[in-house]
């Protein structure tokens, strides 16, 4: 499956984000190289890639923090260059680096975010309380952010990002630094927000997180999108059945096949050697398509 490209000037109604030929350069370095894709309204969209692949730059550009070198981004019908205020009203973002004012308390940070996102002053107190309770921030509300652990800072940042009920929420590595319980709380939050109609754009290093949460996944490498689709579509791309075997040097080799029959034909040739037939995972796809392959395609 080839990366999707836009075919008309007006975004289709079911696309909340339309990225066309987006390029971002820093001097001679091209961080994002002419990518095009769409995010559909109401989906959880995963954005995977190795370190330095261009994930964060893409998110920062789509959310108007970073200026694109060329190309266009349309958020819910609003071009980020010409109509950035309207685009920003629809966006929530929890960045990879925690962007809170550490001189202020948790409550003050949340109130600051609510103020910046034009929540009426009469609704501020209730909005801050109710949103904070989603990730159980209650006991930490009067603590200075500076004094919080990394996990609580991240939770505060995530709560801040949803305080204005964004139409699309960008989560850049949201579970980095969270313990297992907090991670599951966040997954529940993502699913709950999504059920309520919020589109989620998620980058993560945890492949199982993308596999369990995302409706569709894009894989970016060296600034280009190398694959996009549902997890099943991506598995089909390299073969849905994986055979793990050991080469004469004792190294694990993984081969991919379209069907179990094809895989059986291969395992029959392995004789008494150890092998394991299993379902291809998103991690296999990721490693194959980002050039960090452990295996070979059939």
């Amino acid at each position: 499956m080839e990366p999707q490209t836009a075919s008309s000037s007006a975004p289709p109604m079911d696309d909340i984000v339309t990225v066309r030929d987006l390029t971002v350069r820093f001097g001679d370095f091209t961080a994002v190289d002419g990518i095009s894709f769409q995010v559909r309204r109401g989906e959880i969209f995963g954005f995977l890639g190795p370190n330095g692949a261009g994930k964060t730059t893409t998110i920062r550009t789509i959310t108007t923090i970073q200026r694109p070198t060329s190309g266009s981004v349309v958020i819910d019908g609003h071009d980020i260059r010409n109509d950035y205020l309207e685009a920003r009203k629809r966006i929530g973002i929890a960045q990879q680096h925690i962007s809170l004012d550490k001189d202020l308390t948790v409550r003050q940070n949340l109130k600051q975010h609510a103020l910046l996102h034009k929540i009426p002053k009469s609704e501020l107190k209730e909005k801050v309380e109710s949103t904070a309770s989603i990730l159980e921030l209650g006991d930490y509300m009067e603590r200075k952010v500076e004094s919080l652990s990394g996990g609580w800072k991240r939770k505060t940042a995530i709560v801040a990002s949803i305080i204005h009920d964004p139409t699309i929420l960008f989560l850049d590595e949201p579970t980095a630094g969270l313990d297992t319980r907090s991670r599951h709380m966040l997954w529940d939050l993502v699913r709950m927000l999504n059920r309520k109609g919020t589109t989620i754009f998620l980058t993560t290093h945890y492949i199982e997180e993308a596999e369990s949460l995302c409706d569709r996944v894009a894989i970016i490498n060296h600034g280009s999108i190398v694959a996009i689709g549902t997890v099943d579509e991506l598995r089909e791309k390299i073969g849905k059945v994986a055979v793990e075997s050991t080469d004469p040097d004792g190294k694990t080799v993984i081969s991919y096949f379209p069907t179990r029959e094809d895989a059986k034909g291969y395992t029959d040739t392995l004789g008494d050697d150890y092998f394991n037939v299993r379902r291809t995972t998103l991690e296999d796809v990721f490693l194959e398509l980002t050039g960090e392959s452990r295996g070979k395609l059939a």
Partner: protein
Amino acid sequence: MNNPLSILDETYRVAWGDLVYMKENLPEVLITGLIGPLLYLLAFGYGLGSGMSSGSGAYLEFIIPGIIALSTLSCTFSTVAMKVLVQRLFYMSFDELLLCPVHISSVILGKTLSGVIRALMSCTIIMVVGHLISPGVDIDPLVFVVIFIAGLTFSLFGLLAGMLTNKTQKLSLFTSIVIVPMTFLCGTLFNVSALPDAAAYVIYLLPLTHVSQLMRGIMLDTGIPLDSVVILLFYTAAFFCACYYLIKTNRC
């Protein structure tokens, strides 16, 4: 939506966090803003000034407006510049301003508001002290207008420096080689007409010179120099436009 009232509302929304911080740390904010100017008053007014042939009283009258002028710079530039730099590079919270649906003008005014308020508070205290020790120094409502404009100008300058600088050391260096000399040389503590022509010309181009001249004109009732009004407003507009450009083009 882009009307003055919405800009004012947005300015408050942007400034809220900085104002809360200032309110919670008011003693420190005032002390750090007042120590320097009050020491100048003591050292140059009573110390050095008492030995001058013109008499310490006259010199006190001369330097009080100058010290208020230099306070509009010292209370604003470093505070705003450092706050913005820390929020940009260390807290990353400056990004939130680039993500929220408020006008660029509101971001600029919001980030300078705490500097302006700090200047108004500190200068008012110095002015009252100055009036008590030298009654010939008038407290005129126009002075507050000048403090407001000067505080805004130097806060904008601080915002600009905070957005352009990528290291605290560079900001300190800039403060040492530009701000501190300006503090002393722009007619705050002595009359620039005593300087060689070339130096006087350079100093005439600097904004603090005109704040000093305006303060002295109003407080000593010697008339308002219109060229100073124009030049100061030119700097205000120039710094505002530079800040606007940096934010608009995501260069901060």
